[in-house]
């Protein structure tokens, strides 16, 4: 246990004030919830104030935290860390916090996040998450950015005892440990993961015991003693700042309220609650302060000041703050696009059409895009499984480790969630990570990190952050590697607001789109196709970008439109050739290239021209992206249609290994030809 070698009285008195502020804040929220003046869920941290205040007291101004669904205390205390600029105005801080909890435009996240997603990115708080354990790898990524960019930040990640049993906890601690990252993991063990007791849920008595697996210090501290917490945090933070790697602190604590307002606390006894309340961190500290010579007046006015401040904050939040305007619903969902130079697509295309233009393979185009972006932007880093010495499962990163070194071309453990979460955290803290997930079939392992955190953080946090990252992965069938290595799962990823999805079909597109994706300030899912890596095509040398969200007519035609993307572009072009030769049917092939943002105008223009539309996708039929395209055709061009829209998509069956079955499962040229003939007769 840490000892209390303290620190002058005034400082501790300020902690006492902070703890009162948090306590009254939580009481106020509880009161407003009871009156239905706040909607939604608020998880209150009363009882746990000493952890937040003690840890924050050990932070330097530049340091970062990640928070949890029980995050009011973290947010408040992080805001009270003296900053390099002017100290945050305490009243303003409370106002904006309470306004956020009340869903007001004046809140920290402009009412987009509320209690569960309260964040103050500029103030060093990378935000609260509603997913247990969701922020652990994000802290790891933020620490990685700090390390690589020499920012000198330590990142403190708060989480509860429930998170310790999440896989992502283990992935994150491991990754932080092997990379010796400046991160401090703080487990607020309040003994219950909602209702399930720690004693039941864990195989070891202490959360800190788990540190042994990851060869980092595991400190246990009395979470009801702010000075003890401070001492432990200081040790861990100093260690991290010295470059000695991460630590795990377990603060034993207790929450006064239930998990949320609908929790009757049936899983714990009133007697147990009474015992913990006798150790109320505020009362404990009060006694200490009086013992050390603080006057009763000094001490008691802290509570009084807290109550006055919260009264003002309540007035501000409820009566002086506007509601967010519905017309701003979509504001800040995506960071604005920008063009950072390079040749335009049309200029590059002219060069590519020159017969003397070199022909390179799809993988080389990707490799070249990565190398060029890494050269011109030192914040671009790569991470993923087997991307270093191995050069990537399909060779797209070969040679880059030698060129850019292991700091920027980072092999990772097989920890998809941690890779993705770390990319999100790194992106929020100044890097432009390009992470790789070997197969799109594995992306669901990282789904929480990408879909719940990466895609949403900007929006949930009121547009106060951006997540400029690229997830490179590949999909598709055709290699006989069966059901878990052959899927086309783009529909999963187009579903989440906040993500872009790009699926290039040619080397030319792959290079220009990957460069655009890396430069974009939004998370981009960049899905390659395993059977395209060897396909060659003209790619001009040097820098050019293809803007996201612009489709390309790969073949002009007048009779029927085929809308497709990725490898099915090739198959559709083959089908078009055959139909031209055999039937005299003129097929227009529209390559979407970017599924999100979707080029609705290109879809409309082509279907307006032909009046017939066949959609081709390698994804599963049911709820596949083909269905989205069909819906778009109906919305954009219903009255241009001469026939119902038809789709050719993969059968709703796990992709089988045997070749005849695999061929039957995914669209073949003959299927496309038949579908087109179907709408022509």
């Amino acid at each position, binding site marked *: 246990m840490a000892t209390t070698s303290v620190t002058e009285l005034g400082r501790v008195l300020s902690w006492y004030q902070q703890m009162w502020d948090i306590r009254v804040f939580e009481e106020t929220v509880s009161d407003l919830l009871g009156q239905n003046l706040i909607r939604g869920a608020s998880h209150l941290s009363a009882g746990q104030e000493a952890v937040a205040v003690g840890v924050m007291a050990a932070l330097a101004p530049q340091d970062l935290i990640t928070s949890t669904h029980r995050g009011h205390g973290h947010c408040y205390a992080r805001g009270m860390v003296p900053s390099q600029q002017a100290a945050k105005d305490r009243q303003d801080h409370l106002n904006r916090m309470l306004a956020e909890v009340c869903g007001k435009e004046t809140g920290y996240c402009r009412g987009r996040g509320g209690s569960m997603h309260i964040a103050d990115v500029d103030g060093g708080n990378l935000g609260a998450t509603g997913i247990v354990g969701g922020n652990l790898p994000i802290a790891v990524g933020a620490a990685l950015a700090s390390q690589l960019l020499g920012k000198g930040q330590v990142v403190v990640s708060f989480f509860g005892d429930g998170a310790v049993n999440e896989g992502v906890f283990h992935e994150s601690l491991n990754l932080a440990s092997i990379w010796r990252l400046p991160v401090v993991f703080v487990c607020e063990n309040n003994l219950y993961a909602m209702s399930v007791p720690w004693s039941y849920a864990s195989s070891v008595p202490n959360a800190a015991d788990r540190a042994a697996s990851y060869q980092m210090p595991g400190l246990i501290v009395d979470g009801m003693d702010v000075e003890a917490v401070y001492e432990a945090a200081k040790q861990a933070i100093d260690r991290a700042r010295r470059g000695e790697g991460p630590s795990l602190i377990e603060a034993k604590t207790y929450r006064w309220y239930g998990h949320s307002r609908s929790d009757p606390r049936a899983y714990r006894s009133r007697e147990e609650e009474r015992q913990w309340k006798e150790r109320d961190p505020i009362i404990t500290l009060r006694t200490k302060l009086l013992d050390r010579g603080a006057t009763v007046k000094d001490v008691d006015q802290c509570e009084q000041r807290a109550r006055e401040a919260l009264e003002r904050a309540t007035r501000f939040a409820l009566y002086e703050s506007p509601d967010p305007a519905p017309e701003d619903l979509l504001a800040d969902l995506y960071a604005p696009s920008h063009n950072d130079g390079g040749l335009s697509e049309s200029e590059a295309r002219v060069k590519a059409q020159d017969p003397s233009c070199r022909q390179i393979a799809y993988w080389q185009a990707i490799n070249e895009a990565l190398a060029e972006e890494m050269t011109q932007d030192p914040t671009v880093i790569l991470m993923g499984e087997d991307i270093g010495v191995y050069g990537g499962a399909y060779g797209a990163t070969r040679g880059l480790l030698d060129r850019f070194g292991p700091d920027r071309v980072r092999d990772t453990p097989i920890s998809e969630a941690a890779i993705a979460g770390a990319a999100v955290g790194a992106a929020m803290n100044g890097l432009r990570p390009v992470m790789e997930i070997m197969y799109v079939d594995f992306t669901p392992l990282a789904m929480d990190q990408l879909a719940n955190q990466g895609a949403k953080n900007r929006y949930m946090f009121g547009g106060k952050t951006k997540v400029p990252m690229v997830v490179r992965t590949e999909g598709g069938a055709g290699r006989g590697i069966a059901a878990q290595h052959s899927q086309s799962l783009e529909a999963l990823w187009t579903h989440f607001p906040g993500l872009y999805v790009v699926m290039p079909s040619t080397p030319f597109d792959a290079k220009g789109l990957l460069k655009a994706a890396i430069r974009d300030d939004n998370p981009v899912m960049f899905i390659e196709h395993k059977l395209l890596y060897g396909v060659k095509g003209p790619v001009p040398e040097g820098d050019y970008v293809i803007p996201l969200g612009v489709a390309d007519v790969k073949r002009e035609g007048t009779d029927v439109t085929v809308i497709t993307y990725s490898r099915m572009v090739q198959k559709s072009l083959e089908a078009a050739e055959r139909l031209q030769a055999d039937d005299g049917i003129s097929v227009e092939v529209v390559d979407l290239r970017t599924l999100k943002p979707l080029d609705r105008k290109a879809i409309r223009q082509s279907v307006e021209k032909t*009046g017939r539309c066949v959609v081709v996708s390698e994804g599963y039929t049911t709820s596949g992206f083909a269905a989205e395209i069909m819906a778009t055709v109906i919305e954009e061009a*219903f*009255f*241009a*249609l*001469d*026939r119902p829209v038809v789709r050719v998509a993969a059968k709703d069956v796990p992709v089988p290994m045997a070749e005849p079955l695999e061929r039957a499962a995914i669209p073949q040229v003959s299927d496309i030809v038949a579908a087109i003939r179907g709408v022509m007769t």
Partner: protein
Amino acid sequence: MNYKVVMPALGETMDEGTIVAWHKRPGDWVDKGDVLMEVMTDKATFEVEAKDSGYLRTILAGVDNVVPVGEVIAWLADTMDEPVDEEEVQSASSHASFRPSEESSQAVLASESRGNLADARALSAIRVSPRARRLLNQHGLSLEEVAQQFSGDILEASDVEAFLRAREERATESGHNVGQQTIKVEGLRKIIADRMTQAAQIPQVTLYADTSVETLMGRHRLLKVRYAEITLSDWIVKAVATILVKRPDVNARYEGTHIESYQSANVGLAVDTPHGLMVPVIHHAETLTLAEIARERRRLIELAQARRLGSGELSMGTFTVSNLGNYGIDRFDPIVNVPEVAILGVGRLKSVVVLKPHGFLVEQQLPLSLTFDHRALDGGPAATFLNEVCRLLAEPPEDWV
């Protein structure tokens, strides 16, 4: 349950009707009283309302089909999936009495090689693509008219375009000069053409007489102060009706084997409308006052202009008045409105100098021409009739006012 829709009898002389338009499509729900279709008779075009409610399941007679009164032309049913009476459907659709009207007969000839034509089958068999539908709307075309020249199952934009091209070609072929416009003889125009041709074949004679309307015009001016809507035509109708009830030989219809005389004067008025000539009838005109005649005349004219005359308003005329005086016409020979026996033409009011016992006077005179069917009426009786009308107009009874 199924309900027949039959070709209604829309007038006592109607034997058959031509479907001009369907207001509902197969598959549409039809409420009793909804306008189901438009039928053109020898008199006018009528909007025909549904007598039952149900889904319009099958249309057996397409646009331009000529259907005898009482024949089944469509089926309504309570549901979309219950069978309609197949036997009836088949016997109806194979009925020899259904024949395409003249224009579509030509279409049949022109496109015979295309096989089963829309007029010979239910329109419900044709599905129209959204793109084709947009094109139909843009060009103000009905599915029915395009379907006449279409043999497929799905009507696409290219089919509508082909229809438009063909129509344009036909127009170009028939037009020799730049600016020449081709108007199809159909609808009301067709009725008028047929009726006039029919009328021109009967032996008819026109008699002329001018009558003084000095007295009448004096009264008329006074009367107009109170009844602004009264015109000279109303005086004429009143006078004609008054004489007609005394002259059953003129107040009659020539029905080929017999002549039917009437005791009541149902006076038709030739009305010029944007759609063509129409002849609504003022029934029992002899019983009406001038003001009543004026009101009825105005009502009928408004309906005629709006093409909303009902069959009652167009039927059972016994005599017709055609007044072209307002158009600046001095005098003309009207053609008998068959099967009526006689028609009175009215020319422009004129001022003439006449010799009276006291000397020359300027007098307002109205030129009248009576055309009569010489099969039904001879010159003498016709002349006395015209003379009686003239006298009545010259000295109208005071109690008319």
